[in-house]
């Protein structure tokens, strides 16, 4: 989650009373032309048949070439330490691949939930119903309808990665 405003999270910018602040969620943009996949020497990052950019922790060598190649800020995290959990299993879905020390993690659209016909967790938990998920090539889908009705933007399109995340504005 990024804060478009002050110099740190949850801060505004401007002079009172003309203050501005805006929240911006930024996860893996699931690009159609992902630079991380091209850069990964071990093919630990790859594109699934349905277009999801996956991260295989068992294959990842932790070189961070994907982090260098990705044009988006902080969507990938290098696990320098062994991930710690407050319970005896990873929080959230126990079906998720556990993260490993010395590898790079990123959003994979909750592929384990998609495989069960569910939506990603972030779609379910958003209290403001600000997030939508679906197949934009299906003209009857909610997301396809929203793209037709609303003004949209994608970040850093000039980088040529063709991000799959659209922001409704």
């Amino acid at each position, binding site marked *: 989650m990024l804060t*478009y405003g002050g110099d740190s999270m949850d801060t505004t*910018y401007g002079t009172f009373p003309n203050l501005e602040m805006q929240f911006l969620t930024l996860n893996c943009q699931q690009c159609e032309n992902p630079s991380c996949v091209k*850069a*990964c020497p071990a093919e*630990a990052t790859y594109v699934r048949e349905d277009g999801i950019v996956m991260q295989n922790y068992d*294959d990842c060598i*932790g*070189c961070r070439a994907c982090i260098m190649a990705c044009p988006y*800020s902080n969507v990938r995290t290098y696990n320098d330490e062994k991930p710690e959990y407050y319970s005896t299993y990873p929080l959230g879905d126990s079906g998720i691949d556990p993260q490993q020390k010395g590898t790079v993690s990123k959003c994979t659209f909750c592929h384990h939930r998609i495989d069960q016909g569910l939506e990603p967790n972030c779609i379910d938990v958003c209290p403001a119903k600000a997030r939508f998920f679906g197949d934009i090539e299906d003209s009857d889908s909610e997301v396809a309808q929203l793209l037709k009705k609303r003004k949209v933007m994608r970040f*850093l399109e000039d980088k040529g990665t063709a991000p799959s995340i659209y922001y409704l504005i």
Partner: protein
Amino acid sequence: MLRKEWSLIANSILVQLSVGLVLFFAIYRTFMAGNLDFDANRRLAVFAMFFAGPVVIAGMLISLFHLGNPLRAPSAIKNIRSSWLSREVVLTSAYCALWLVTFLVESGDGNSTFLSWITALVGVVAVLSMANIYYATGRPGWTDLNTFTSFFGSVVIFGIVSSFLIFLSSGSVEPLVTKILNMLGYLFIAILFLRFVQQWPLFSRLKQDKGRHISNMVSASSENEANIKQYKSLTMLGLGCSGLGVLFAMLVLITANSEPWAALIPIAALLVIAGEVLGRSGFYALGLSDR
């Protein structure tokens, strides 16, 4: 900020040092073998050809420390199709193997000139792959001609440093060798000058509009003020060190390698190596952060 990247700095410097040694060995063997005395030829073989191998192997081993899972390192060659890092690993490994063959031929009193050129060429292509790892990221500080000047400049600079060490270590210097070392000294100065003048357009691009735009916020480019400052200071310090080193070396030449000036040669070499390490540290400061 650079504590995690010491292995990348050391790896790139050592590989480029090795390729510089082999490249200059190939050049001298091709164009100067008949003009060098037995002692100089022997020093050339031992110093340039012998050290090149252990240096590049040390560089490759050190690079393992950069990996989160070093035991999975062999997987790094799986994506030659698109990954410059995969290509670099394969090419550097091929360079190592070719070095060994060339060294064995040289040690057996065979003619290793042709093999040394092949080895040097593969080494140069390995350095090109290494540079493209960073150039291809699209980060403003790395997607710049400066990346190639930095990497290939190091190859040539290390070749020049090795030339001074090899040919000035015996004491007296033949006129032809003095002439060549003079030319190499000027070449060194030209490389430093090129690196220096390249900084201004790069500085100017890095300072461009850092205002409150969403694209600046979402962009992974970590060229914030701290990174840019660190890059500038390390780069200038590095250029200064290398400049001082080449001045010392030219002073030794001017005084015909006489005492006590001859003692400046190893100091000059150390200054140049320090300059290259500082410059490379600045390069990595520009694109990497602690995350």
